[in-house]
């Protein structure tokens, strides 16, 4: 039995030590916001926070996450929306949305490390892949969230 601290709750899971964290989250804890895209740490759809650091959960054996604080998209902002999520709505970032939770987790971790990221910081950190091509809006939304210029989205307003 492994003890996992996910989104502030302790879960005891009976899984192989080498099972990637992604599959424990998705198939054993039913947390489906974290996505599978490539399985080899290239696309970032599986990004979660482990002790505050953005990690590609498809390639992290679950045993190495035991005893650490794991945060998924479901736990990113326990009360209301995270400012990154607000900015994402304000700038209408997602299209199909599949990669977006990983994108949001990467962006949130970036802001923790660099509260005012430059374009170069974004280029370097945001290596998540998006097939729909939301990149221009991702960049705008990160800057907006960093500058605190994002207003809560008002439904029905353009």
């Amino acid at each position: 039995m492994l003890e996992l601290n996910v989104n502030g709750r302790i879960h005891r899971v009976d899984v192989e030590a080498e099972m990637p964290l992604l599959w424990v989250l998705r198939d054993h804890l039913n947390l489906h916001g974290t996505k599978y895209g490539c399985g080899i740490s290239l696309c970032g759809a599986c990004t979660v926070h482990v002790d505050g650091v953005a990690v590609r959960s498809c390639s992290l054996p679950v045993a190495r996450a035991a005893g650490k604080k794991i945060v998924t998209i479901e736990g990113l902002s326990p009360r209301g929306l995270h400012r990154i999520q607000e900015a994402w709505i304000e700038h209408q970032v997602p299209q199909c949305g599949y990669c977006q939770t990983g994108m949001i987790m990467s962006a949130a971790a970036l802001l923790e490390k660099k509260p005012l990221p430059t374009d170069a910081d974004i280029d370097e950190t945001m290596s998540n892949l998006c097939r729909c091509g939301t990149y221009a809006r991702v960049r705008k939304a990160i800057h907006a969230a960093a500058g605190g210029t994002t207003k809560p989205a008002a439904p029905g307003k353009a």
Partner: protein
Amino acid sequence: MSLRLSRRQFLKASAAAGGGLALEFSFPMCSSAAAGGAATEVNAWVVIHTDDRVVVRIARSEMGQGTYTALAQLVAEELDCDWTNVSAEFASPNEHIRRNRIWGSMSTGGSQGVRSSQDYVRKAGAAARTMLIQAAANRWKVPVSECRVDKGVISHRPSQRTLRYGQVAAEAARLEPPKAVSLRDAGNWKIAGRPLPRLDIPDKVLGKPVFAVDVALPGMLHASIAQCPVFGGKVKSLNADAAQKMRGVKKIVREERFVAVIADSWWRANEALKQLKIEWDEGANGNASNETIAAMLREGLADPNLPQARKIGNADTALASAATVIEAEYQSPYLNHATMEPQTCTAWFRPDGFLEVWTSTQNGEASLAVAARTAGLPLEQVEVHKMMLGGGFGRRGGPQDFVIQGVTIAKAMRGTPVKMMWSREEDMQHGYYRPASVVKMKAGLDAQGRLIAMHTRIACPSILAYLGISRGDASIDFTAVRTLSDMPYAVPHQQVDYAMRNGHVPVGFWRAPGQQNGYYRECFIDELAAAAGKDPVEFRLGMLAENDKDRLVLEAVSKAAGWGTPPPPGVHRGIAVVSGFGSYAATVAEVSVSAKGELKVQRIVVAIDSGYVVNPDNCRAQAESNVVYGLGSILYQENNVKDGRIVESNFHDFRLPQIAEMPKVETVLVPTGGFWGGHGEPGILPLTPAICNAIYAATGKRIRALPLTHHDLRRA
């Protein structure tokens, strides 16, 4: 209100709304109606709750392109309800069949989602509005002409009374639908035509489970699948001894063309799959390669008896007397769709004999038909739950291979839901690829540099033939010849020959099928302009009539991009105009190429005339999307064939652009009205030639084959 009452209303409205007689039904209904109590179906598209919430049924799929929101906007526009009360849900394919295909088409491809639905969804909104006002007038016993509606509130000014839609929906549903309705002029739109926030985004930023991969059912098992790496191959022998003993493994399913492992988690299923010892019967295709495919296409180009996709005048005679003759050969590789969500299908053979399927599909009705056929069940005993798609781009429409597999696997575990998901490797190697093609173009200019003749020969696998879709002359696949066979330029002598050479690699509708022809044509036109010593814009405008819509977008993009003004230092421009999918599109690309030959696409300006624009912000998002999707295919994407199989297996050898490569995109929407064009694909059409023409401006090198990884861009 009881479910019984609501069901009667539903039947009445469905019979009246043109579907003919709806059969008695018991299961299932769309969730809004099934939720019972507080909801009334005014007609098939519009469900209104007593608290005024409006649910719009969406028959097309949502794969990121925004149709879900745009169609809801069109219905809400004519319904004249309060947009803040509007939500949407997918129409049920099972109910669609039972109600005599009441929602029109469920197919979502060809940028048709809005343009081919707009007429009937707007009429449904208008019909519902008419019935709601009539219901209020009946209750008040006043003439309809004295009633007005605004944002879902019906008012009778003379008596200063008001009723909300939610208060009269049940009565409205019992009325006869109007025989004819008039639709609002786009100039008077209040909800449509505005950049309203998308309805699907709030859930998507929270990671709420909406995709096919997120389906979770009590007792559900997971499956991973291996198909013969050589297309068309079969399973010859299987040794599953090691896999069977692995933790969580429930069953190994061996079929003619694939093997699947069912386990209690996907990772366990996939780990066990890797331990299977499968011997494949590769069939006749084990020796196919890039070289054999190129030889097949070249043989096609040399065929003296090709069918003609276009013939105007006499191209060969005119070429013989032309002052200047230019020839060029262009080519493109196979391309995988690489949707971020791999192909996925969950199926559950219920103990009562009903089959439920959950999948990411671009055509719910096709998925239903394929599931029923695979299961051997009548359509009425199958339901397909349309999930949000993690990208589609044409992969999830025609083939439905993943539904056949998902249902086949679940059949081996009757009573238990099984979710089958492909690994990325499986997805990369078992696509329905954008066809590889080779094109030879020969053009003649007269002494004044005018294009007088063009003879084009196209060798390209046929998507329609592969998918078994017949449309017109079977020897010509319009998706393989378009843009060359329907060139808008006034060229007096034109001939286009088509060599259908299919090969063994599955081909399918890849975002804007036939878009490679836009690359060929517009790069070649650029070569001709250079040979004629003319500016690329002037050369094209000289061949386009005064009010030609290609001309209008070409002029619009030239103006917006500053064509004819000096670009920033080190920056070079290219231009192209290519129309399709109901719209007209032109692009200016600005690129720089370093001394080391490194390309940077700096800025893309794209002008699109789609007739009408339902959600301008979403249309801009689609233009941005087309830039990134196209950019990957220009820079580095290709699927190579060796030993009968696809060489590439994941994103390390089939790269996708990252944020750092994203150029600045400026979208110029120039809707001229009078027609309805699409937005999901047109933006990609002029992209490739505009960028390649800009590379020529920067380096003096013509890019006649893609991707660019095969070219040295250092200035010679």
